[in-house]
């Protein structure tokens, strides 16, 4: 099927694509190993320097921010709490909501359905100031709940789970009903194992989404204790010896690890639904 010639073409195109993706990040990494004077006078670097340890130690341990108290580790743990919270809670609430919509005979099913799906694509950015007003009215500014809850108000995951449940054969529930399985047991013992791939795919999607939030943490946090690593980036560079390149490299590691380690499920989960 594949001639030698077409294989060579395919590999060349893929190599070019890989270079397009890898070269910028390599330059950032190489630059992160040089001292700040080299960067300031000679620009970004292709080759490795000898300041790796020093630069990364500075990022990890030097205090910064307006108060000169906040550390990188604090920021990254806030980001992880936010990302993990958003991913886990989205999976739980959406699984349950989709389950109700697909598997229950309830009077308000259609109303729920439209309530949830008319706002499928209304992102936080479009309702950002009113959301801020509500969060501060509920006294949730500078809390993890304030960082997390408004980002759970999205039905995209529910939509994906619903699409997936609809592909599960009717016979599964018929058989379960004959065996006298109640609705909670059916959900836990039958649907959850079947949804494993989808759950992981949605988890990765929401983890990356939560970790990478920029605008919302800027608005909702005023004390540095709740800053996240992405929104705090610019402020941490000010008035410190923290190198921006080493900061960038360290800050992108957690979501990249999640995506690379779970990519098998991510792609498979998308196969069920991503069409």
């Amino acid at each position, binding site marked *: 099927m594949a001639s030698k010639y077409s294989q060579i073409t395919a590999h060349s195109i893929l190599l070019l694509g890989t270079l397009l993706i890898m070269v910028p990040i390599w330059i950032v990494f190489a630059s992160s190993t040089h001292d700040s004077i080299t960067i300031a006078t000679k620009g970004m670097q292709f080759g490795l320097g000898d300041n790796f340890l020093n630069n990364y130690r500075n990022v990890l341990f030097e205090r910064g921010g307006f108060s000169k108290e906040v550390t990188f580790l604090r920021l990254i743990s806030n980001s992880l709490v936010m990302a993990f919270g958003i991913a886990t809670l989205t999976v739980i609430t959406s699984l349950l909501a989709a389950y109700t919509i697909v598997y229950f005979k309830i009077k308000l099913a259609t109303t729920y359905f439209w309530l949830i799906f008319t706002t499928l*694509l209304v*992102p936080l950015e479009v309702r950002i100031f009113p959301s801020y007003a509500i969060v501060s009215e509920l006294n949730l500014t500078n809390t993890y709940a304030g960082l997390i809850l408004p980002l759970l108000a999205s039905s995209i995951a529910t939509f994906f789970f619903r699409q997936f449940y609809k592909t599960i054969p009717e016979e599964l529930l018929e058989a379960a009903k004959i065996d006298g399985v109640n609705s909670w047991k059916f959900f836990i013992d039958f649907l959850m194992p079947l949804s494993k791939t989808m759950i992981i795919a949605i988890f990765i999607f929401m983890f990356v989404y939560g970790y990478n939030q920029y605008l919302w943490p800027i608005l909702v946090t005023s004390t540095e204790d709740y800053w996240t690593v992405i929104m705090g980036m610019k402020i941490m560079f000010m008035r410190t010896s923290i190198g921006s390149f080493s900061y960038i490299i360290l800050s992108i590691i957690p979501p990249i690890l999640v995506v690379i380690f779970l990519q098998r499920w991510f792609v498979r989960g998308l196969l069920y639904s991503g069409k």
Partner: protein
Amino acid sequence: MKKVQFNSNLSPFLFIAPQLVIILIFLYWPIIQTFTDAFTSQDPFGFSKTFVWFDNFELVITDPAYLRSFKFTLIYIFVITLVTGSLGLLLAVQANSVIHGKSAYKTLLIWPYAIAPAVVGVTANYFFSERLGLLYSFFNDLWGFNWMNSVSDAYIYVMIAGSWKQISANFIFFLAGLQNIEKSLIEASLIDCKSSFRRFWTVTFPLLMPTTFFLIIINITYAFFDTLGIIDTTTIGAPSGETKTLVYKAYIDGFRGLDLGSSGAQSIIMMIIVLVITIFQFRFIERKVHYN
């Protein structure tokens, strides 16, 4: 909905309640508030509000700065969707055809998906900085590139920054779509059509239509909303507001300008755009279900 269902009154309500409550408080309440803002005018001290009908909307759509931003957003969405979609498809087709190294390419191409737009922007800022930037000096040598003064150069800057990471998402979804096509269909087409180029456009690509359509929606929403972090860390709208997306402009007008009426009206216009996209998407999905 399933034909066989559970009959119960309390438990389904408990199952749906968490999401329903969150959506009512953090989605519907702010949306209602946005409408209130859009149709009222607030005095400078925030003490009183007056109902002003469509005044805010009129001010917004007659503002040349808004129209500039509208034009830029349309071009931005179009270019990002087209560039990242075609590059992603090209790479996915190649990755699907190679015998060796498929999973290595997959790993190497998948991870920019995980990088925050704001981080991409901060990084792009260095590549395009006048003093140190590699891309700045590269383009500057070619035609005197200067994004701080030239609108078209600023467009190039934010388009490169906006496209880079999104190639990944397109690649992942197209590859998943290609792997999902039945092998027998492709094998059958091998007999009928010798040219692999024609085979791709007449057999494989039509089978990829659902994925393509899905990706168009993904790319539109990315270029529309997620690029806020990129604009805010690169041009901030430079030269003079020409590279503000609609979302970024609504944010700046509300945050810096404290003009909630205008920001609200801008948000409503965006919601209408998004609603049209949603309806479009639903019609497509429902049609697909019929085919199945």
